[in-house]
């Protein structure tokens, strides 16, 4: 049986982590390559990098980070943030990333999903979705709306419709972030995750709200997620990836326990 994946998410600005990550001995690590290596050792199943820099210099620095990560960790990792063209995707993939994620760019120009899938294969293209609960309206019969620009712009697009549409266009995976739950550490948006995961055939990574191991248990069982993204709860060393996986495994959720 396939294991449920636990995926730490690292925010990077100009080649540095935006928040220092505390590891053994509470050493603050600002280098994304070191942090990735540490999570790899803890048993992370995959790593997500989110590049907050938009400038050209920032991108060049990020490509260098990707290259250095690829030399040192041998699990899949994806890079998102500011990817607007197939050429942007190519640079990241050639530098060694397994996958690229598109979010705002895909809503504004859905063709990039198909172009990217044709160029690199669907397995490389992750659709990032930022979703807000708005209740049922004519435009949003599912009760969930797509938001873009990091949550600042509402689109009027129904989230459930967009997930199915992106799968049809060639997305290989969905990273589903609840704007409402994001940053709360109160748990993932279970209903939203179950709704989307039940509709599409591609894997769904749940994101937003993880604070305790039981939150991951809930979203990987009732929420039907295939993978769960974690950030603060591991960055601040409240839990290690190993502790989370052991918790899940003890409760019957299959995770990869040997690495």
């Amino acid at each position, binding site marked *: 049986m396939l294991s449920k994946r636990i995926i730490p998410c690292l925010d990077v600005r100009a080649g540095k982590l935006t928040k220092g990550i505390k590891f053994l001995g509470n050493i603050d690590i600002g280098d994304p390559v070191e942090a990735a290596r540490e999570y790899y050792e803890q048993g992370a199943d995959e790593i997500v990098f989110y590049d907050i820099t938009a400038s050209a210099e920032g991108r060049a620095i990020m490509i260098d980070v990707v290259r250095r990560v690829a030399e040192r960790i041998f699990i899949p990792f994806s890079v998102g943030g500011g990817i607007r063209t197939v050429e942007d995707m190519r640079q990241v993939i050639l530098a060694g990333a397994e996958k690229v994620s598109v979010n705002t760019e895909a809503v504004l120009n859905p063709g990039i999903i198909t172009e990217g899938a044709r160029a690199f294969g669907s397995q490389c293209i992750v659709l990032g979705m930022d979703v807000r609960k708005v209740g049922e309206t004519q435009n949003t019969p599912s009760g969930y709306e797509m938001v873009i620009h990091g949550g600042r712009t509402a689109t009027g697009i129904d989230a459930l419709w967009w997930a199915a549409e992106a799968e049809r266009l060639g997305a290989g995976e969905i990273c589903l972030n609840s704007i409402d739950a994001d940053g709360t550490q109160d748990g993932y948006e279970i209903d939203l995750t179950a709704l989307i995961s039940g509709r599409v055939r591609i894997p769904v990574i749940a994101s937003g709200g993880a604070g305790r191991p039981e939150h991951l248990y809930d979203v990987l069982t009732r929420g039907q997620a295939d993978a769960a993204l974690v950030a603060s709860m591991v960055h601040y060393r409240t839990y290690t990836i190993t502790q989370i996986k052991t918790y899940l495994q003890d409760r019957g959720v299959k995770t990869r*326990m040997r690495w």
Partner: protein
Amino acid sequence: MIGVVDYRAGNLTSVARALAYLGRECIVTSDPRILDGASHIIFPGVGAAGTAMANLREQGLDVWLRQWAAEGKPLLGICLGTQVIFEYSEEDDAGCLGIVPGTVRRFPGELQAGGQRLKVPHMGWNSVAFCIDHPVFSGLAEGAEFYFVHSYYPAPSAEGWVAGWTEYGIRFSAAVARGNLVAVQFHPEKSGRPGLTILENFCRWGGTYAQ
């Protein structure tokens, strides 16, 4: 030197990086004359079988790979490389290299396990139950998991060539071994330490295995 066959089937840098990490010299090329000088050949790839076969034929690599396999030198197939080693793939209705008798099939439309609907592609970490003693698959912990991404799976004509089984709604052969050839459906270059162990074992392997 390890030769990595480049036939425009996706990103081969991760295989080259894993070999570099292991301290192995490698060259990624589509030139048969350069590949001729290698001691071991790795045949990776992601993408679709039809396009892969068209690219291989165009570069004369189909003939070259059959010959390499026939000469008894070590050959490792990975993912799409593994699939096109067989005779035929349901993907694109493609005739393939025919180095190992067998076909490549698509996962059934309604895959289920334990009452849950399974998704296709089979993407993520799954365990492989190795069923033979083979130098390339030695030194792996029981229950070691590997990273998979695929919608089609290899079905060799003889079960005796299966080196390891994986369960995903159905049981399929995730690893195949026959003479000087080993082929895996998963990505050893993205499977952490167990994957690196397989690559290292392959680089040390002389290419003989008695069935």
